[in-house]
Every structure is written in structure tokens, then in C-alpha cells.
């Protein structure tokens, strides 16, 4: 009961703090912009902790955040092994291969308006499909280790990046291209100096979508067979053996990895497309 009252008080205090901060004259400073969502997130964690304690929820159903943090701190070695297997080997290598292949393919296709017209609708359609379903097929083709996970990620990342890059390459208008022509710039110079930079906001849209898909692909593929390490493997066996706190620690790693991955891509985008109106805000 005490826990519930504490959580309620915390929630009210946090809400009041957030309202004051958002309405104050500092509401546009970086400090407030970070503090407000962090306080909101902490409120959710406190509410979770309070619910678990006050209703005596069994750790086999829903462990408290503090218990998860304990497990996290105690099994960093295991979590690191899984992180290496799933994120560094499976997701990242697949992400780079898939995005790279999509970029090269987009530049090649772009030379033919006929192909562009045909491929855009198909690419858009495929990008909306539940591609994760090919995971079992690719696992049976490439074996249980990280290569098959990377292959799933390649296919998942490929289409969003391809479609966005093709669209981005068409962004420059005739005026700009004529200007390049008056500079006597050839195809490659125009591509390198004008069209690829102009396509960057679109390419990064595709890359950001791909960043969220990459981890999903790598983890799903592990449900269909993996060596005895990896985040998907640990989650599926953890659910079976009721070590739920380890599963939540693994989820925390996945959440951190996904957020950081997305954050890094967004940060690079900011550096590369600093000229774009959406970045100047």
C-alpha cells in the first residue's frame, strides 16, 4: 500500500515539475528538453516497481525494474556475448551489406527511367510486406550462425533504402542539373557533387527505417535456430525456463542497442544534411 501512495505522490510531483518546466521561459533549452522526457520515463518505472511490490506479483510473471537491474549488473558477461552475436555480427553486418547494396542498385537503376518507373511501385510494395517471414527460409539456406541472421537483415533493410534512394536521386530539378551542365560537369561529377548530396535526406529516411528493422530481423531469425548464444536465443529459452528477469535484462539491452543505433544514424544525418530545412529548425 505504501508503494502505491509513493508512486502516486511521485507521479503528481513529476507531473507538476514537468508542467512548470514546459511553461517556464527555459522551455526551449536543451536541459529542459532532455529533463522532461526523462522524468516522464522515470514515472513509468516507479509505477511499474510500485505495482509489482504492492500486488506481490511473482518474479516469474513480471519482475520489478530493480530486480531486472540487478540481473543486468550480475550477468554483463553473458549479455555482452549475446550482444556481440546478435547486434555486432548479425544486425550490423547485414545492415551495412543491405544498405550498401541498395545504394549501388539505386544509382544503377537511376540511369534508366524505364527501370525506375517499374521498380518504384514494386519496391514500395515489397517494403510494406512482412519480410520477417523469410527468416526460416534464409536460416535453412545459410545455416544457424550469424550469416543467416545477416542475410535476413540484408533483405529487410534493402527495400526501404532502395526506394528512398531512388526517390532522392530524382529530387534535383532541371534547373540545378542545367547549372551543372554549364559547369561542364559530366555524369559522375553531377552525381557526386549535386544529386547524391541532394538525395541525402531521403537516403537517411531509408537508413533510419532500416535501423529499426535490422534488430527485429536479427532477433526473429534466432527464433528459428541459432548457436547457443544471441539475444533471440536467450529470450526464447529464458521464457521457457522461467528466468524472466534475464529476459527483461535482454530486452533492456535490445532497447538500448536499438535506441543507440537509431540515435547514431540520426546524429550522422544531422551532420550530413545540416543544410536541410528540417535540420535547421
Amino acid at each position, binding site marked *: 500500500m505504501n508503494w502505491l501512495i509513493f508512486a502516486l505522490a511521485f507521479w503528481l510531483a513529476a507531473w507538476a515539475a514537468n508542467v512548470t518546466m514546459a511553461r517556464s521561459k527555459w522551455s526551449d533549452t536543451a536541459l529542459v528538453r532532455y529533463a522532461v522526457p526523462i522524468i516522464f520515463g522515470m514515472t513509468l518505472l516507479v509505477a511499474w516497481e510500485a505495482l509489482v511490490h504492492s500486488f506481490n506479483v511473482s518474479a516469474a510473471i513480471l519482475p520489478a525494474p530493480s530486480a531486472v537491474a540487478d540481473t543486468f549488473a550480475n550477468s554483463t558477461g553473458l549479455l555482452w556475448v549475446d550482444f556481440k552475436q546478435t547486434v555486432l555480427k548479425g544486425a550490423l553486418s547485414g545492415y551495412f551489406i543491405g544498405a550498401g547494396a541498395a545504394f549501388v542498385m539505386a544509382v544503377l537503376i537511376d540511369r534508366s527511367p524505364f527501370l525506375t518507373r*517499374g521498380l518504384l511501385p514494386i519496391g514500395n510494395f515489397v517494403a510494406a510486406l512482412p519480410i520477417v517471414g523469410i527468416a526460416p527460409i534464409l536460416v535453412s539456406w545459410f545455416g544457424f550462425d550469424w550469416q543467416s541472421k545477416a542475410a535476413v537483415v540484408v533483405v529487410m533493410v534493402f527495400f526501404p533504402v532502395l526506394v528512398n534512394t531512388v526517390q532522392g536521386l530524382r529530387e534535383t530539378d532541371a534547373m540545378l542539373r542545367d547549372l551543372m551542365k554549364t559547369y561542364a560537369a559530366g555524369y559522375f561529377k553531377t552525381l557526386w557533387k549535386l544529386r547524391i548530396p541532394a538525395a541525402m535526406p531521403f537516403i537517411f529516411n531509408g537508413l533510419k527505417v532500416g535501423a529499426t528493422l535490422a534488430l527485429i530481423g536479427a532477433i526473429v531469425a534466432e527464433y528459428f535456430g541459432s548457436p547457443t548464444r544471441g539475444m533471440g536465443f536467450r529470450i526464447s529459452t529464458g521464457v521457457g525456463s522461467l528466468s524472466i528477469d534475464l529476459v527483461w535484462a535482454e530486452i533492456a539491452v535490445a532497447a538500448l542497442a536499438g535506441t543507440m543505433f537509431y540515435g547514431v544514424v540520426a546524429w550522422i544525418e544531422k551532420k550530413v544534411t545540416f543544410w536541410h530545412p528540417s535540420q535547421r529548425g
Partner: protein
Amino acid sequence: MTKTALSVLTVLATIVVIWYLAVAPMNIRVALDQAARAGAEIEPPSAVERRNVPILTLMSNNRDHIAAGYDLDRPRLPTPMQVGEELWKTTGAMVLKGRTWSKRSLIYHGWITLQSTFWGFLLGTTIGIVGAIAIVQSRVIEMSVMPWAIISQAIPIVALAPMIIVLSSQVGIEGRGFPKALISSYLCFFPVLVGMVKGLRSPTAEQLDLLKTYSASGVQRFLKLRMPASLPYLFTSLKIGIAAALVGAIIGELPTGAISGLGARILIGDQFGTPLAIWAALFAAAILAGVLVTLLDRTQHVLLRRMGMRS
């Protein structure tokens, strides 16, 4: 229009041709193993020796057996023809035999997945729209919720999926319908939220000023200007949302040992080593996604035209 159709058809035809060409090298090992077991002469004769021979050498040494790769029961890569046949066997042919709702029918499994997709879509759209209204109305909510909405999409839902299913069964919710809908709404709400925030903010300052000169109240401004102005944005995000909801429903079936639904067909096909079943379920999911998006697209077209907006 015809030009686009022609390009699309050409690209599709190219994909099918490449697919057919790929079947031979993909299946040659399985085909040779089968032929060897049937007593045919294969070069090299033993399966262990064959493992280290490159595929192209195998193909040129055993030209007579390449064709067999196009007609295997358990191919590594089935031909488009085989996938089409399997699809027909599990849908149209079942209907003709009057067994539409049999457990072997993809129509039955598609219906199960469609239900979760529908509930997930409904839940996700509601969360997205309500969230967007709250965000547009209140700066505190925008500042505290928006970053988490973005982070929520960077968290791989597949990691959470098994936990959602365990939790909901412990809380006493029967069946998989609810957890699946929850997973699917998790993927679905975000595009709707982002699109609606954009749409609700799309009225220009002049339009808002005009309503002020009419002395419109806040509610009126919302109902008569912001809501209608957001509709085109809403439909664009609904189309993304329904595709995401379908992905979510299938993900909800994959890691959890479900027995009905398209995702379960994929899972079972994997466990029983029947690749044709996996491919048929995949294509059924693709067709379902296409139908759903097209339906929303048509609705958008008709509705926006009736409201006097171009579409």
C-alpha cells in the same frame, strides 16, 4: 499510366526469369541426392564427396539431373509455379471442395491473422489519433511523450513479444488474439501518431486567423478546421499503419508456438521441413497486405473527393 504498367510488368517478368534460373543451382544438390538414392549414376557418386564440389561443376557433370531440381517435394527454392500450385491447393481448391475453414486452408489461417491485424489496427489507430490530439493540445505532453514514442520504435518489438504473451496469459486472458493485437498495435500506432500530428498542424496561420475572426471557440477550431485538414495525412499514415499491423500480427505468431495464423503456418512449415508451405504462407501474407492497402487507398480516394479535396 500504361507506360508505368509496362515497366512494372517488365521488371516483374525479369524477377520471375531470374527466379527460374536460380532454381537449378539452388536445388541441384537435393536433386542429385534424390537421384542417387533412386539408383541413378551421379558424378561424384557419394554424398560426402559431392559436398565439396562447387555447384557449377556439379551441374555440368550431371546435366541430365538439372531438370529434376524443378520438381522436388522439398526444394530449397521452389519454382514460382510450385508456389502458385501450393497456394491454389490451400485456398481455391479447398473452397471448391467445401472445406474453406479446414485447418489446412490458408483462408482459415489468413482469417485468424486478419482478425488480429484488424484489432491491432483499431487499437493502434485509436492510440495514435488520441495521442496526436493530446500532443497538439498540450506542450507538456508533447515534450514528455514524443521522445518516448520515437524510442519505442527503436526497441525491437520481437524481443518483447514473448513477454507480452506470457504476461497476458498469466493475467488470465485466454487465447492469443489479445497479445497478438497488442503487438500489432505497437507497430501500428507510430505512423498514425506522426502523420496525425503533422496533419493537425497543417492549417496555416491565415486559416486559423480567419476562424478567429469568426469568433470560433477552441473546440470549433479543432472540429471544423484541424480535423478535416488532417484527413489526407491520416489516410497516408493509415496505409502504412495497416501494413505495419499485419507485420505485427505475423511477428506475434512467429516466436510463440502459435498453431493458427499465417505466421504459425511459416513456423510449422519450418518445423516439419515443408518449404512449400512457408512460401505459400508468405505469398498469402503479401496478397493480404496488398488487398488491405488497396482497400484503404480506394476509401481515401472516394472520401477525399466527396469532401472536395483533390486526391
